[in-house]
């Protein structure tokens, strides 16, 4: 059986996300409870979580989460890390072994900073240096796979049902201001941990439910800009597109959403002049990054979450609000189970981004 990257594996899924706008700490247990409700939307072949604000003690360092097939791969990867990064802390990620989670790789965590001399020599900005290093490890070191590399955030994922994955990674020991979760229903049996979601690049993480029909058009376009879609998954290509639009093209979140889930030309035609010009520009400038076919995604980033549906809304997604908390999920039940008493519950339209950021970021602007 070919694993992720050797073959393209479409999958259906469940997603859930939660954020506290005031930055209150949310325990990992809550998101596990939410995604567990949508058990039937997964088939036990992948589950995962992303937590933001979970490493306050190391918040200025890049937290690398790495899967290793063997100690040999670990040694090789650590030699690479040693040459390019200052490793402040390294440890195995604590887990709770369980009969439901099998075929475990070695799972390590490193808090690192790029070596100043290497960074200077590279003529790259820091984030680009980190992202290239990660792409290099993943594509060149056999048996090593960095699946999380942002600051003050981390991804936890495995092959299994999401609630079992949450238990395995002892998420009740982590608190963050935002969480996303994913339960996977691949139409094939990959059995590889790296293929589980979320997919992350730097502090961006994506959980995605859908199967995009524009995949190869998007992949071939984004690969021109230095990305390498090694996993052949929707989530991977969507993450790269977002990274490209936000970090490299410096677009705002909502403009990036207008590229990915662009309004129909007929809608653009009837917009006020300035808006029409901008959206015509964005669609004409980035035709290869328009994503069509069903998707609902929750993008995690430093300081917030963004939920987005494809422009026809071919996948379900609802948003709930209660005080400073915002919930996003494939199904209402996943929200109700952790917050039965909502102020507001609504279903965003296709292509309409729901962007939630920490209040502290707004006031500082």
């Amino acid at each position, binding site marked *: 059986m070919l694993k992720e990257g050797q073959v393209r594996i479409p999958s259906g899924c469940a997603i859930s996300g939660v954020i506290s706008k005031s930055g209150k700490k949310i325990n990992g247990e809550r998101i596990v409870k939410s995604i567990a409700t949508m058990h039937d939307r997964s088939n036990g072949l992948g589950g995962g979580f992303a937590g933001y604000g979970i490493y306050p003690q190391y918040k200025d360092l890049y937290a690398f989460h790495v899967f290793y097939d063997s100690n040999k791969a670990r040694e090789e990867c650590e030699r690479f890390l040693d040459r390019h990064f200052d490793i402040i802390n390294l440890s195995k990620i604590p887990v709770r072994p369980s009969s439901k989670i099998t075929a475990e790789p070695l799972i390590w965590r490193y808090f690192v900073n790029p070596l100043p001399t290497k960074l200077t020599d590279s003529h790259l900005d820091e984030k680009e240096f980190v992202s290239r290093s990660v792409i290099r490890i993943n594509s060149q070191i056999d048996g090593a796979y960095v699946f999380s590399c942002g600051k003050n955030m981390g991804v936890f994922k495995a092959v299994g049902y999401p609630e079992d994955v949450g238990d395995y990674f002892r998420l009740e020991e982590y608190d963050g201001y935002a969480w996303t979760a994913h339960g996977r229903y691949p139409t094939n049996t990959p059995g590889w941990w790296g293929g589980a979601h979320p997919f992350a690049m730097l502090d961006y993480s994506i959980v995605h439910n859908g199967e995009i029909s524009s995949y*190869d058009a998007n992949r071939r376009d984004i690969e021109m800009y230095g990305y390498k879609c090694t996993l052949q998954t929707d989530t991977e290509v969507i993450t790269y597109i977002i990274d490209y639009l936000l970090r490299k093209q410096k677009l705002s979140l909502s403009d990036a959403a207008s590229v990915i889930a662009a309004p129909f030309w007929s809608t653009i035609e009837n917009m006020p002049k300035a808006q029409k010009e901008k959206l015509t520009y964005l669609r004409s400038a980035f*035709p290869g990054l328009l994503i069509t076919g069903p998707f609902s995604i929750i993008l995690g980033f430093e300081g917030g979450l963004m939920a987005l549906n494809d422009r026809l809304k*071919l996948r379900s997604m609802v948003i709930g609000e209660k005080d400073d908390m915002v919930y996003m999920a494939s199904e209402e039940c996943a929200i109700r189970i952790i917050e039965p008493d909502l102020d507001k519950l609504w279903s965003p339209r296709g292509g309409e981004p729901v962007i939630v950021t920490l209040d502290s970021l707004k006031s500082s602007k």
Partner: protein
Amino acid sequence: MAIDFLYPEYEIKRDRDKCICCRVCERQCANEAHWYDAELQMMMCDSAKCVNCHRCVSLCPTRALKIVKTDHTFKENANWTGEHIAEIYRQAGTGGVLLSSMGNPKKYPIYWDKMLINASQVTNPPIDPLREPMETKVFLGAKPGRVEFNAKGEIKNNLSPQLKLEVPIMFSAMSYGSISYNAHESLARAAKELGTFYNTGEGGLHEDFYKYGENTIVQVASGRFGVHKDYLNAGAAIEIKMGQGAKPGIGGHLPGIKVREDISRTRMIPEGSDAISPAPHHDIYSIEDLRQLVYSLKEASDYKKPVIVKIAAVHNVAAIASGIARGGADIIAIDGYRGGTGAAPTRIRDNVGIPIELALAAVDQRLREEGIRNNVSIVVGGSIRSSADVVKAIALGADAVYIATSALMALGCHLCRSCQKGNCNWGIATQRPELVRRLNPDIGYKRLVNLVTAWNHEIKEIMGGMGINSIESLRGNRLMLRGIGLTEKELSILGIKHAGE
């Protein structure tokens, strides 16, 4: 001489029981293959004069006529086919280069027919174009590498001039001269109604057609016929023709007999003089020269119009396209070896160039590898025969396609491949006024609109089946294609998997 006699390849068959001697066949055959014998009170014919254009067949009110391939034959020989033998006799008799027209008719592989299209099942829903929006609008032109912001942080419009196509199909270059005034009028009016473009070809732009400028691509070819500042600014884009799929490496020749008053004025050459386009542009002997012409034309049109560079699909097309993409062109048009022509040396037409499918795949991949694919749009032509071909071309990586042979067929062309004789019975490839009149643009333009509209409906249906609702998500989406009966090498050049994979 008797040795030069060649039995006609096609025979006119008349059902005498049905023939009412109305003589429409006689009146409509510019080749004078039919006549009425008053003594016998019968219609007669000479199959040797017949070009198999079906004009008489189509107009015969009692359906008394058909044209059949003759059963007269040389002795069977797999090597020395009848065609080879006949052509040797003809050349031995005349000492001349054999001339042909329209596209390469030989039995080479047609890769469009060896690719199959995907559809959604279960995991991803097909989309019904009758119920949901389905977008086939395309913008052609260079895309900006980087978004720029003004002082207020708003996005600046740094987009180069773009061509907006409501359908991913344009009419490709056919000069006024090679085709008739009425054919041009039909194309221009159809392009306007469809929201797409037609192309003047290298013969300049007739003064009557300046009003269709917004839907016109003006061409600059090696002969520079009819090129002046107003002409360059009359269209929506300027195309530099470096080559043509039907005859790569060969110039053009419009015989003086076709250079009548109107054409002489449009081409800016004396009446009755031969219009000869040299094989190369004599100011372009290399890629850096091309760049200079690209920028000269941009200067002349105030940087307001995209510049297209059209090349024939030849062996190292990918490298050439890369050079063009870096040479300032906004759009590259690639013409495959099955592309049509009004006249070409037979040996060139049938043996030079490569299939457009392979050329397209190679160019798109090469430009992506170099990270410059979005610096240019790619338009391909050279025998796009149906909406399925359009979908496959776009999935391989084209932004849009050029059609010409299909368009001429919509106007009545029956592909008799005798354009070079100038006696087109359908009023298309002729300048004889009594023949030109046979193509009424009121009918012609409507048929072109019908054809492209029908294709567009089909494109939408196919896209919907794939779960794609915008043409840009189809572009370069090679996972939507699978090869059938192709070798590993062919699959790797096309960048697609085999069916079943």
